């Protein structure tokens, strides 16, 4: 599988994704500049974290108009795998590839810390190596990670099993206290109906080796 990491102006997790995939896991990975529109040869596109366009206006609101995004939409429509992490998740929501929005954290502060994620759906290309209910330790680092959608959308997400990760306790309980940003239903990551576009706020590329505190993130890159 060939992975392409899309770099927008202001992206900063591109290097970490490249490190986790290339240096740690030995996968075939390359950068794609946002002005380049040729996505041939890639199997999985990664929209990494950062502050694309400084998060000005709203996170992801400007990046979604980058030249590459029309191609990303086409790529997804053709069934290609698209993985949005943090700012990438925000961009996918702004672009309409995923439902809902990411609001400012309910406590109105940036948060960088390790969280526990309960895997809710293992029937996706991103979580097929996980057990249902497995708890992953992965860091978050964001200001706007509070997932919000209207009641109908939420009900639909739940009914279709589109919620892939929820914030929980180390034991896998879903509690208000374990929710680091006020996300509805403790949602940390969702997938589209078709099952090929995933967005999550936590950073799996940071949980790539024990020296940095854990390697649970390595489970999530599709093969």
């Amino acid at each position, binding site marked *: 599988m060939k992975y392409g990491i899309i770099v927008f*102006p*202001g992206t*900063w*997790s591109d*290097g*970490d994704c490249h*490190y*986790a995939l290339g*240096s740690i896991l030995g996968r075939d990975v390359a950068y794609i500049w946002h002005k380049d529109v040729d996505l041939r040869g890639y199997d999985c596109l990664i929209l990494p*974290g*950062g*502050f694309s*366009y*400084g*998060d*000005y206006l709203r996170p992801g609101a400007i990046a979604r108009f980058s030249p590459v995004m029309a191609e990303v939409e086409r790529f997804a429509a053709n069934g290609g795998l698209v993985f949005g992490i943090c700012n990438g998740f925000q961009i996918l929501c702004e672009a309409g590839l995923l439902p809902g929005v990411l609001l400012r954290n309910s406590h109105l*502060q*940036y*948060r*960088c*810390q390790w969280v526990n994620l309960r895997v809710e759906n293992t029937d996706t290309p991103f979580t097929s190596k996980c057990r249902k209910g497995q708890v992953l330790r992965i*860091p978050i*680092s964001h*200001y706007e990670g509070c997932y919000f959608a209207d009641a109908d959308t939420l009900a639909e997400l739940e009914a279709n099993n589109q919620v892939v990760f929820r914030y929980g306790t180390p034991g896998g309980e879903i509690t208000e206290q374990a929710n680091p940003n006020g996300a509805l239903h403790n949602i940390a990551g969702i997938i589209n109906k078709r099952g090929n576009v995933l967005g999550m706020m936590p*950073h799996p*590329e*940071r949980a*790539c080796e024990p*020296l*940095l505190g854990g390697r649970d993130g390595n489970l999530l890159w599709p093969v």
Partner: protein
Amino acid sequence: MPVSQEILDEVALSRAEYNLIVERLGREPTPVELGMFGSLWSEHCGYKHSKLLLKMFPSTSPHLLTGVGQENAGAVDIGDGLAVVMKMESHNHPSAIEPYEGAATGVGGIVRDIFTMGARPIALMNSLRFGPLSDAHNRYLFGGVVGGIAGYGNCLGIPDVGGEIYFDQVYSQNPLVNALCLGLIESKWLTSARASGQGNLLMLVGADTGRDGLHGASGLASRTFEEQKELRSAVQVGNPFLEKLLIEACLELVQHDWIVGLQDLGAAGLTSASVESAARGGSGMEVDVLKVPRREQGMTPYEVMISESQERMLVIVKKGCENKVKALFERWDLRCDIIGQVTADGMARVREGDSVVAEIPVKLLSDPPLYRLPASKPAWLRDVQSLDLAALPDLAPAQTGPALLRMLVSPNIASKKYVYRQYDHQVQNNTVVSPGSDAAVLRIKGTTKAISLTTDGNGRYCYLDPYAGGAIAVAEAARNLACSGAQPLAITDCLNFGNPEKSDVYYQLKECIRGMAHACRVLRVPVISGNVSLYNETRGQAVYPTPVVGMLGLMEDVTWHCTAAFQQLGDLVYLLGPCDVAGLAGSEYLALEHGLVKGRPAIDLALEKRVQRACLAFIHERLLHSAHDCSDGGLAVALAESAIMGGLGFKGWLPAYGRLDSALFGELQSRIVVTLPPRNLPQFERIAARHKVLLTRLGRVGGNRFAIEGCLDLPLDEVSDAWRSGLERALGG
């Protein structure tokens, strides 16, 4: 025509300095020229009151690549063809006026100093001082500064790996905001901020130039200020997104041979950037202000030359390469204009189209007068140094538990997690030890190595004894690195003091530097960069003399890294270093419990060196499970912090008898609390004996209580809750 006092005040030059300018120039300066002199001869750019003292610092080392004052930051070799670039800088005055933007642009400025050298910024740290949080204005400053650091730093994708925060009344109107940045570079790409080669072009990249930050260098950073509102326009507004683009574009640029130099625009804007780079290159330079893109209309040449608009870089481009450079920046959507050229006549010439508005020898601008001021030992020093313990009631055993909880919950001791969880401290995938331990540890990818980073500086000690306080700042920073397993390599410093024209402040400055320099020599760490912030006074009241030491250490093997947290049930707990009950002088305990800032702190540097060497030897032999510097709050607090961080209890006893308050909370220097599994004991004792360092067994790790025989026995949860919640409680959260 004699120049008016009003005009001289505006550019912060004295009448004598003005006369000197006229004498050396052979004529009266034009208004633009006067503004350029004011900026470059300011304390902030010219170090006119401190430069002669700073020469006391040892500045050489076998690892040194770029020393003090040569470039925008210092650089040291760490082997494997790699270098670390480091600098710390203050942004105290802007942060006092507008805390969010002041702190944010402080981060922006220090980051530019690093990538100007061609290095990728890989870590940020901050050393902060505020007045007590019980005051609403101090809470506003605290929230703004932390928010500004987070807002700017997080956007850049540079991990902020901690630092330190203290609160004291003396910083109430005058917070200290010192930002440190560290960069990594393949040594061969180290880039100079040099303008040389006649005909080479000066290109200005990044933000348009506006009226923001006029007189930042001469006004804000070089004078005391009473009426803050007047100077609000002297604070700049940051655009971290633009800075991020500049980082990436410039790091790409330095890998081509299209340029001769790269210089950021900081204090005194285009004036200092162009003049200083010409001075380094031994050249002259010419700038046409009409070519400088503006963000507002009607700006005078004077305003263009001293504007401190942020996120601008000056690139000295080889003639003929300008189109390639332009294309590179355009790929990043960055504006880039040719604004002038390097000349061979040694003059700094500013044009407005066809007319010359300033023409001064570069050497004259970059050679401010240096002053050695009268220093006299303050009469009040003797009084504050005398501490009569007999007049203070000791703690009764039953009072020690509540006293420990009060110490742990106090903002100076309590966990700073509330702050650093707002900073991205992980991005770039190098952070091995996160903020909260004695030092942060970052691995160096592609090698087995790691670097360790800490900041230290106790203003209270320096107030009580500037010489000892200065020495302790250096010693404690090195001790923090030793606790993490790293050998000290280099120092960057920020010297935050009051008005040096007062003889007692100048005495403090001189003695602090002397003490720091002595400790640097004993511990063999050179100072490779730094900054001086004087005039930290409000209504005649100076802050404590507060030198902040940022220290870099190197670990050959990253797997050595050690933290303060207890690791394992049943481990033995030992005190490494002197075992004495003295040490209440200048302690947090005296200040918090008795409202006293008294006594005379002291340090034995020879002993300090032995303790640090022993600690490093233990860690390199992999004997320890944890090591924690015994500093603010003394032994009881050090033990409690290790227990809390490890989530494991402690049961033990006091190493010495005498006064309980002093034994528990005294801040005697050169002590480290370590833990080890019992099987390592024989080797541990052998190494300690070899280094002639005293070991005292304190107890064992384990259980869910924090207990010291004969005085306190508390549930670990209660101890932990006090320490973890202290800062938020003080903020009213």
